[in-house]
């Protein structure tokens, strides 16, 4: 159990690095547009498979309702 004295500070160090990275990412503007990126990750997928004609109508109806 004495290993905790080493492991926990190491975990904290990781936490500090993670916070640093996140703050850097926010400052560099990577999180300025949350909506677009959240949408795009799904959209590219659908654009690739949209040749399946059967899905078209349901997809357009669903998008209008939301």
């Amino acid at each position, binding site marked *: 159990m004495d290993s*905790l004295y080493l492991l926990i500070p190491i975990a904290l160090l990781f*936490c500090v690095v993670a916070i640093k990275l996140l*703050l850097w990412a926010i400052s560099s503007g990577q999180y300025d547009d949350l909506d677009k990126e959240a949408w795009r990750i799904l959209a590219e997928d659908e654009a690739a498979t949209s040749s399946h004609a059967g899905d078209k109508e349901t997809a357009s109806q669903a*998008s*209008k309702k939301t």
Partner: protein
Amino acid sequence: MYPASDLQILDESRTCYHCGEPIPHGVDLSVTMGGAARPMCCPGCRAVASLIAESGLENFYRQRTVYNERPLQPEPTAVEQYRVYDDPQLAATFTTTDDNGLVNASLLLGGISCAACTWLIEQSMAGLPGVTRALVNLQQARLDIQFDPEQRQLSDIFARLERLGYRPRPFQTSIARQQSAAEYRTDLRRLAVAGLGMMQVGMFAIALHAGDIQGIDARYQALLRWVSLPVAAFVVFYSARPFFTSAWRHLKKGSLVMDLPVALAIGLAFLASAWATISGTGQVYFDSVVMFTFLLLLARFLERRVRQRQLFTWLDAESSLPSAVVVRRDDQWISVARIALRAGETIMVKAGETVPVDAQICKGDSAVKEDTFSGEPLPRSVAAGDTIYAGTVNVEAALQARVLGDYRDSRLAALQRSVDVAQTSKPRLAKLADRMASWFVGRLLLVTGATALVWLQLAPEKAFWITLSVLVVSCPCALALATPAALTSAASALRSRGVIVRGENALESLWGCTHLLFDKTGTLTQGNLAIAQVHPLGNIDRPALLALAAALQHYSSHPVAKAFSSIQAASGFDEVTYQVGAGLEGRCARTLYRMGSAQYCRELVPDFPAIPDDHFYWIGLCRDGAALAWIGLDDSIRPEAGAVINSAMRMGLQVELLTGDSSSQGPLLARALGIETVNCGQTPQQKMAHVQQLQESGAVVAVVGDGLNDAPVLGIADASFAVAGATDLARSQADFVIVGGDLHKIIESVLKARHCRLVVRQNFAWALVYNLCAIPLAAMGFVQPWAAAIGMSLSSLLVVANSLRLNR
């Protein structure tokens, strides 16, 4: 007065595939997409949709989540308008040129509604030769584009964007915009730190809580407490700072706000836990502290984000003016940037264009549509010597006018200034949460004091820790979450129904609203002329008269002509000519027909009778030797207006009509719709004064409007709506923007706001019940830190789950 047969009847089952608005009767437009004909409501929508379809980007329609905005002009204007941006001097204000000779430009886009728009714009721009990079920021409605000036001109890009149905403008960094972007990042940083901190401290806390139950070695307990301390400290000092500053700022002013119990709970629980860690006694609540901070920051972040989207797509009044102006310089008509105009120069305003500056006419006769200023639906006839104002639309013929001054001196700028004044004098209703807070803080301090006193008598050594556990257990997490969670949920529900909620306390003001004030032109009416009455003067019947009139009007571009566009025209007319300020003349079967003002008809038929004694916009129709008819035109009521006003009254709202139109149309319309209180001929200042007077007598006033002249009153009202087609200035002042044209959304919003009030009250009731149960237990010394943490999370979850019901 308003026979149903004369109203424009809408076929509710057909809506435009592009903008989602109902398609007017008689319009038969469509675009073939994905193998099916998609109905369109106007040529503008059709032009945009066919461009999208032709570019192979029709996927956009499947991807989007919100309908597009209806393009303002029926046909997109030519590239010419944007040529001025090719001028290096003007372009330099929003572009930069890099070392490779590529130009980087930032454009602000009006009309962006959802993430799919960003895809559409990026795809369509990237497909243009010469464009190297196109990136849209949805939050700021900004397009950053990089292109090779050798291959592509800035004006092409502007025109292309307009053809896609967006309204491009140079992106000018303003202080407000920079501030908002900076605040957004700061909020996100605080939230991120609180989230990561919560995970760390939570991990340690589980070990500590397990240790409390199963037993733990004192040195490991001390270790876990000591590592939790710096993380929690960072979260409290970095992330929770806004709670402390806000509580302190309000306390100095003597007001108790929700941030005060929040700051007290966070501060005291943290200090006590830190003391327990250092002294090795008592209990620690680090996990509760950071979790509380994170949940509250998250709720506030989400609430603000729902409201702030599209905050800057609607700008001030100046942005509605054309950027390019045709001016006479060196005996030539040249196009220059509007801001480069100087007083005394002569400008040319063509028919259909917006007047760019206040100016005095030196040549030409025409009419200007000033409905956004005055609420008058009919154009005002102007001639040499008259003044025309920036922001009005020249409808009949080209005018030459002498510039009177720059934008700052214009009537439009004066209106903008009164809007800014209205905003600062808007009454702030006390937030329900803050009233709750002041009630709660007082009671809590009493209970805590009593607990401390009792335990000092019974067992002084336990008194401190038990008193502290009362404070921590009473942690007002659920109480503080109650409103933001409900407001966020209601706002996103309204958004998906086509109402954008922008005002900070808009929903709270709306649920208590007592008066609902409507503007007339463009709000209750459609802002277009329609045929209201026909007075036959000869023996020709009504349908035949209208067919004759329609045949003549077919050749005109005056707004009057629109009223006749859906009528089957009589055949056989030719040699139709248009006389500015008078009317139309044409031949059919060798007979001369005239249609227009009384004077114009009398030239042909000297004994043409006088205008009937009604307050319509009358047009005479005659043929060689015989008077035929007076046709009365009028602004047609929106088909749903009556039903909406009825529902509003049934909901117990006082409905009033507030209009700038001074004709008798106001009272007539009010009578037709069942509105009792009518105020006609009101200037923007009088409208403001009226609302203020109502507010002073204790009313909570909601206003519905659309024009520039409504902007000040929208700014001062407790809650305000801007309807479809509203000017940017009106939208930027409104708390609620209705995206489609449906007035029913007003009722829907009021109902949603009232439902929101119910949910907020339920949330408060639950939070108080939780506290009423937990505080006595804590005061008796039964509550352990792990129980406090579980109780807090569960009560908060319940509040959030209850609020999510609003999202349906």
